[in-house]
């Protein structure tokens, strides 16, 4: 870079312009990146450049030299500016490339996941939460009273056959259904009640592809002074549509549960075969998904409610079964083995 000592002579100006003509345009053309272009701009057009010096010196020339050299210098400066601008645009458009093999895999991001059972529970509970049901939980080790007596399942009654039970050394038991939570909640609170209670339940079943001695249920309970069986149908239908799709059809079948009267089993139209009949629904077109019913007055009596003043419904469903149906899982044991190759499929 040149300092600006004094006024340049016409000859000096001439040779500067010559040099620019021969070198500057070539060097600009050769610049391989923006980083190379910027120093050239400073060198040729910067405040301390020879061009600036030249332009500043024009004033000291004789009028005819001034006109001639001035016009030429301005023309060269314009072309330089243009050339740099163009080069800059070109470089910005297509930056020079280092070879990059973009087929190489991206860096792994550790990503955990909730268990499919938990996800299913959360999904189900969130539907009910939108209906102002509250998530509650109850004990797993329970007494005879909460698991049976208060639920209108008398000792030595065949209705117990549906609830084979683990007993503890201390004479307690592992709850065989989450309906125990109905009793726990009603004992503590007064209506109106709207609760859902997910949790583990235990039955001494032989383990196979569709049975386990521990599994999960979600219990629901709605009790006030006006809720009817028609409300039960409405709420359950709404829930099942939310879970299985808006076009799902629902079937309510009479059934028997000791703690509800009337009792109902609920089927949803098979979403796998669109109710045409497949192996999952046993060619029936219907999938049994939950049990429900109006709370039996005997249950209200057991918790000290007046059955003439309160009414409502309860429902229960198996979480594993719903998760298996929705995800097409064919063996319940996969849930408890916790093989990451299984769990990662839900991440």
């Amino acid at each position, binding site marked *: 870079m040149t300092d600006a000592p004094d006024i340049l002579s016409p000859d000096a100006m001439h040779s500067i312009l010559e040099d620019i003509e021969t070198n500057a345009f070539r060097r600009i053309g050769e610049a391989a990146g923006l980083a190379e272009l910027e120093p050239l701009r400073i060198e040729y057009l910067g405040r301390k450049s020879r061009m600036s010096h030249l332009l500043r010196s024009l004033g000291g020339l004789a009028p005819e030299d001034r006109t001639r050299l001035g016009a030429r210098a301005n023309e060269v400066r314009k072309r330089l500016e243009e050339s740099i601008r163009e080069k800059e645009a070109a470089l910005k458009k297509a930056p020079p490339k280092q070879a990059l093999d973009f087929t190489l*895999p991206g*860096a*792994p991001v*550790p990503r*955990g996941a909730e*268990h499919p*059972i*938990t996800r299913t529970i959360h999904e189900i509970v969130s539907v009910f939460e939108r*209906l*102002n049901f509250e998530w509650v939980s109850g004990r*797993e*080790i*329970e007494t005879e009273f909460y698991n049976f007596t208060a639920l209108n399942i008398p000792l*030595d*009654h*065949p209705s117990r056959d*549906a609830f084979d039970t*683990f*007993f*503890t050394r*201390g*004479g*307690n038991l592992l709850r065989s259904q989450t309906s125990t939570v109905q009793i726990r909640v009603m004992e503590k609170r007064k209506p*109106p*009640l709207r609760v859902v209670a997910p949790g*583990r339940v235990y039955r001494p*079943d*032989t383990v196979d592809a569709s049975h386990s*001695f*521990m599994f999960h249920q979600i219990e629901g309970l709605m009790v*006030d002074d*006006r809720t*009817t*069986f*028609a*409300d039960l*149908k*409405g709420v359950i239908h*709404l829930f099942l549509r939310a879970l299985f799709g808006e076009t799902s059809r629902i079937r*309510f*079948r*009479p*059934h*028997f549960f000791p703690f509800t*009267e*009337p009792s*109902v089993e609920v089927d949803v139209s098979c979403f796998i075969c669109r109710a045409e009949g497949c192996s999952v629904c046993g060619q029936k077109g219907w999938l049994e998904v939950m049990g429900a019913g*109006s709370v*039996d*007055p005997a249950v209200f009596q057991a918790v000290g409610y007046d059955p003439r003043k309160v*009414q409502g419904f309860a429902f229960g469903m198996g979480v594993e079964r719903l998760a298996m149906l929705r995800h097409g899982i064919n063996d319940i044991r996969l*849930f408890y*083995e*916790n*093989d*990451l*190759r299984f*769990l*990662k499929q839900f*991440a």
Partner: protein
Amino acid sequence: MKVSTHWLKDYVSFKGAPEDLAERLTQAGLEVKGLETRAGSSDTVMEIEITSNRPDWLSHVGVAREAASVAGLPLALPEFKNPPVRGGKKDLTVEIGDSALCPYYTACLLEDVEFGESPAFIRERLLAVGMRPINLAVDVTNYVLLEMGQPLHAFDWNKLADSKLLIRRARDQEKIRAIDGNEYALNRDDLVIATSRRAVAIAGVMGGSESEVSAGTRNILLESAYFQPVSVRRTSKKLGLSSDSSYRFERGVDPRGVDWGRERAVYLLRQHARRIGRVSAVYKSGRPPIKEPVIQFPVAEVSRILGLEIPAAKVSKYLRALGLSVKAASAGKLTVKVPSFRQDLSRPCDLVEEVARIHGYDRIPEKLPSLEPVYRPLPDIYRFDRTVRQVLTGAGFYETVTFSLINGKIFEKLGVSLENRATRIVNPQNKDLDLMRPGLIPSLLEVLKTNFYHGGTDVRIFELANAYGAEAGKSLPSEEPTLAMALAGAREPHWQEKGRPHTLFDLKGVCEALFQAGGIPQVEYSEISDPFFSRGYACLSGGQTLGILGEIAGPAKEHFDLTQPVFAAEFPLSVLARLLSAEKKFSPLPKYPSSYRDMALVLDESVRAGEVRSLIQSLGISVIRKAEAADLYRGGQIPAGKKSLALSIEYRADDHTLTAEEINRVHGQVLQAVREKFGAALRS
């Protein structure tokens, strides 16, 4: 239960296809699980699931009655009228010794009976429902049981060799060999049919083999009785012996059916035996316990419970169709008399269900309830549960769900006594899994084992579930929602970097993230001794133990076939949730920049990073914002017994940008203090 549609048509003239019948029965609550047609037969057999409240459906007549009700068709009962007989054989007596367990017992003696194979219709029907025909005497008792639901028993009169039958409680240790060939030891809770010498049948459950009817039997004593359901059930459960008879008795047979069933059997034997001699009058003891309650039924209950108005006339019609007798009492009230075969009906709500069933569940409208909003605050433990899941899944941990029942051997092996410290199951399904887990770490180690066995390399898992305490006497044990985590293996390798093995500090980092997310301040770690850990630490905050973490010890790893380093932690959620800060408070962002200076110290091995950090904190210099270990180095020019710890110190003032001179001065103070306290040297 298997039900033959051909057989049903004897009692109800259903016209449609078997599929239509199956559909109607299912919609009435008799769930038809399947339909099958046997080869070479036009009969369709339905597999029906019958709920425990409806023993009256455990027969073809019972199912036909329901089909007739829902279809509005008449029901034809089978013929059981026999010609009158002249009198009994004088020396036979029947006596009930315990009328609570057997309120009604009848018997009829049929002499000189010559019988062979049953007629084709009986054989075919028995085969259709899965029962093997044997001979007319046996087949008729089975046929009547399946037809009318009344269990009968036929004794070989000659083999009884006694003319006195007593229905009594068994004696302690009294033995009987039953028709199934097994010998059963009875006690005072069991009821038997006995001669004066010995028990000849377990009442309601199974006859004795000694008096079993065979092809050579000529004199048959036919029993028909009502046994108390609970007693039959207890005996059947205790002996592990269930039969078609016990199944019906324990659910409760129709007390009126005792006489009908016996007469029906006599009728069929008279019709189909090759020859039959004298038929005795009926020997009876006790009375049938007929309960036919009258229910005062306010019709308004229907709309109150169902949410649907059904006129009283229609309600009456539905109930009558079911065989109930209905009278209009006062306005809006019906008086309903329940027949003896419907022992499940005793209350107005039971009748509401019947009305709903016959009306059709599908015809009850769907409504959405009118909700009164209810608000309850979310308990802390739920909030923390969400936080935990977010932090851990974000850190690459997978949630597991493992059994609450575990094998306690690991505790024995590690010398941990669970006596009075855990709850055990007396009837485990798998005898090794009888312990309600006192902690979750063994379950997670089992999951690690599974995953390494399947070739896993980076295993990070957590579980949120209960840990259980001990039962004190009959009181319920504690159930503590607990978080456990475990990790082993190495990070997944990538072409840009190798997969670094997990260390205890990876687990510590996750714990710290958790404390931070929960707003739990100032956690300290103190070394503990725990048989599960080779190095174990307790996390403490404000004097409370939050939980433990550490590296799993050799013996525990060995138990689960694990060879690589394994790290695990366990936290009771209630403690964490209690400390959970409700709100996070905003602090204004710094206006002036921080400066960072490193300080590479050479220290004795025994000096710990935490001590250096505490010392720097104790200087109380406000511009020091953070002093953390940035590097730890041993070997090279560092003498043995020493280590090089590089600290990165952040300096910042709130009111101005610190100058180099200011920082140098403070940095010098820090160095001075570290030198004095720990004899540290600056690494050259």
